[in-house]
């Protein structure tokens, strides 16, 4: 019998190990999502089950999630590692150095995927050929060129001022301009050169040439995958697949893929599959199925956070109404919570709860507290003193007074607080998509990234509808739960 158990466990072990898929994350911009899809498909081809949690906000969120094991891998850039994530590392550290620095953190790094995504200076290819400009140092020979840079590039010390100094550039016709406008100005010939990111989709679109940084002014932002070192035991096949991607994607290929998604509206999965020469798997679920899934995800966020908030906030409000000093303290604390910007609140929850549904619920829960606490407090303290005293004079114990007299009289105000919290929650929950919680925020985030109004509306309209439904629902509940005597009074 005992042996049978051991057999069973041994047989189940590989199944259990396979049951947790490898999770790959990506940042909230197109290139990162494409690289995430490439990693996922490469893993799939190697027989590994991989899920891709796309568009998880910015660097801080992904790095935190990787450190805490909420994701197993994500695409990153060496410059971000040296400038933002690692301390005590030289700004131009090479990948072996970074690998050594990351190892104590339990994080591995692949070799460069084959391209740099950094600042570059671009010109129209025909104009550059005509003037014989290939390298940045060639610019010094053409003092009459018109230059236009994005405002940020003009202002940063590692932008135009440093560039001019390093290459001794003589141009005086230089101005700041919106990035998108600068591309058009470049295309129309009004401007000869501008700053861009070396893998921008616009480079092939406008037939631009990026000039060679021959004096190594711009920092290296080589694309790599970061992964948790424990993956080498858990899924060696996936680590192998990631490492095989090193050196395979050059800047031109990345630009083409970015352009296909951003300019031609192709799906990341198709572009990634084309690049790898494999079949894309998911051909996308229908609109209604997507909508249903997101509605369920969104409802889950709103309902769980709201229910938990009601359970804590009403007793807190009761306590606050009972003692003046405690009341001030509770109000001040929940007021402070409300002043935390919502995105920051979501990010604060990551160290505590990782990424996904639970940190989003925790953040929404904290946001829901104030309206409910405040309205419970206001409802209870708003009861006329002679009524409160009448209840006491009857000889009812405190608990019975609260339950039978005070709370029913404050009910309308409490429900209004819960309603406010619920409606705010429905809206704020859309930010949950940035930390992997799904919901209506997902298409909004994608839509903003791709500048696709249709996608944004696919999230915004259901979210607005849900807010209206919640509002209507609570008005019904309010009518149902408010004692008739109180409603009559309100009418007079």
């Amino acid at each position, binding site marked *: 019998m005992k042996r049978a158990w051991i057999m069973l466990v041994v047989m189940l072990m590989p199944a259990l190990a396979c049951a947790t898929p490898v999770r790959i994350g990506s940042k909230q911009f197109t290139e990162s999502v494409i690289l995430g899809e490439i990693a996922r498909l490469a893993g799939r081809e190697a027989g590994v089950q991989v899920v891709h949690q796309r568009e998880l906000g910015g660097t801080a969120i992904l790095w935190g999630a990787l450190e805490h094991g909420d994701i197993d891998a994500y695409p990153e850039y060496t410059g971000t590692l040296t400038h933002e994530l690692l301390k005590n590392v030289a700004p131009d550290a090479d990948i072996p150095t970074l690998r050594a620095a990351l190892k104590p953190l339990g994080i591995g790094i692949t070799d460069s995927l084959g391209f740099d995504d950094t600042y570059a200076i671009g010109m129209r290819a025909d104009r550059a050929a005509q003037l014989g400009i290939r390298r940045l140092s060639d610019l010094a020979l053409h003092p009459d060129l018109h230059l236009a840079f994005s405002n940020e590039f003009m202002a940063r010390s590692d932008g135009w001022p440093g560039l001019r100094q390093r290459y001794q550039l003589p141009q005086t016709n230089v101005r700041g301009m919106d990035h998108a406008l600068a591309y058009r100005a470049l295309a129309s010939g009004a401007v000869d050169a501008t700053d861009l990111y070396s893998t921008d989709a616009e480079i092939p679109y406008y037939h631009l040439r990026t000039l060679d940084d021959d004096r190594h002014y711009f920092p290296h932002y080589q694309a790599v995958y970061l992964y948790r070192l424990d993956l080498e035991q858990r899924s060696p096949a996936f680590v192998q697949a990631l490492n095989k991607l090193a050196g395979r994607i050059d800047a031109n290929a990345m630009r083409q893929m970015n352009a296909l998604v951003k300019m031609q509206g192709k799906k990341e999965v198709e572009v990634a599959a084309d690049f790898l020469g494999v079949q894309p798997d998911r051909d996308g679920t229908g609109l209604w199925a997507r909508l249903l899934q997101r509605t369920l995800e969104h409802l889950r966020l709103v309902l769980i956070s709201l229910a938990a908030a009601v359970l804590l906030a009403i007793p807190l409000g009761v306590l606050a109404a009972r003692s003046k000093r405690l009341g001030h303290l509770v109000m001040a604390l929940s007021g402070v919570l409300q002043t935390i910007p919502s995105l920051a609140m979501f990010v604060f929850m990551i160290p505590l709860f990782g990424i996904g549904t639970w940190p989003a619920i925790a953040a929404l829960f904290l946001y829901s507290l104030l309206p409910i606490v405040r309205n419970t407090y206001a409802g209870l303290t708003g009861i006329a003193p*002679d*009524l409160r*005293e*009448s*209840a*006491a*004079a*009857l*000889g*009812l*114990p405190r608990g*019975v007074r609260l339950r*039978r*007299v005070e709370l*029913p*009289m404050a*009910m309308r105000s409490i429900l209004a607080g819960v309603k406010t919290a619920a409606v705010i929650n429905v809206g704020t929950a859309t930010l949950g998509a940035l930390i992997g919680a799904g919901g209506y925020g997902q298409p909004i985030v994608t839509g903003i990234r791709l500048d696709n109004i249709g996608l944004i509306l696919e999230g915004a309209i259901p979210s607005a509808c849900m807010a209206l439904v919640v509002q209507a629902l609570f008005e019904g509940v309010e009518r149902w739960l408010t*004692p*008739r*005597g*109180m409603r*009559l*009074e309100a009418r*007079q």
Partner: protein
Amino acid sequence: MPIAHSACPDAFELSAVHKRYGAIPALDDVTLRFAVGSTTALIGSSGSGKSTLLRVLLGLEWPDQGEIRVDGQTLLPAQVLALRRRVGYVIQEGGLFPHLTAQGNLALLPHHLGWSKDRIRQRAEELATLTHLPLSVLERYPVELSGGQRQRVALMRGLMLNPDALLLDEPLGALDPIVRHELQDELKAIFDQLGKTVVVVTHDIAEAAWFADRMVLMRNGKVVQDGRLEDLCQRPADPFVTRFVQAQRTLRGSP
């Protein structure tokens, strides 16, 4: 008329009670006794301390100094719930809870004490007869009641447990003159019929005289005079008593 039975302790007794709200004295060295079964009217201007006096008797306020005795026993915080259930308390607007019907208001305390529905209903009907309240009114919410009906329900709520004493704080203060006159008659009849210890606060000296033989006139937290109407009129303790009595007389004097 209080009759002192030395064997029988007073229903309520205050000895040297002080109570201040900040700098304002609400009760300033008040010593008073209310005999069992007596009816007493507390009179005085607003802010004279007469409402505070009722509230300390119920333990809704605690004196800064001095002692309250109920049925000869010193009042302690642990006993207030039991005390309040033996005393009916009625305030100016009735203090009915707006979220409950009249019947719900009456049932609140008995229900908590485990009375059956039938018993509550039966008691409510008895009291409705006593206060001349139509039974159908019991199903209404306080906002649907007239001022007079509200005071009747409030009185019934105070009487549900058949208490030994009734404390009334300007029970008719918010009513129009006709209803008020009618209710004065009824209240007087009820007091006489039930024979309970009654303390009624009013600032209307004629109403006070109608309800009670004994009047206690208060001013700035002190008892100015304690006696019958004739004493106040003919043997005033100080000029304020005369002023108070005359001011009220001129009000009621016009036919």
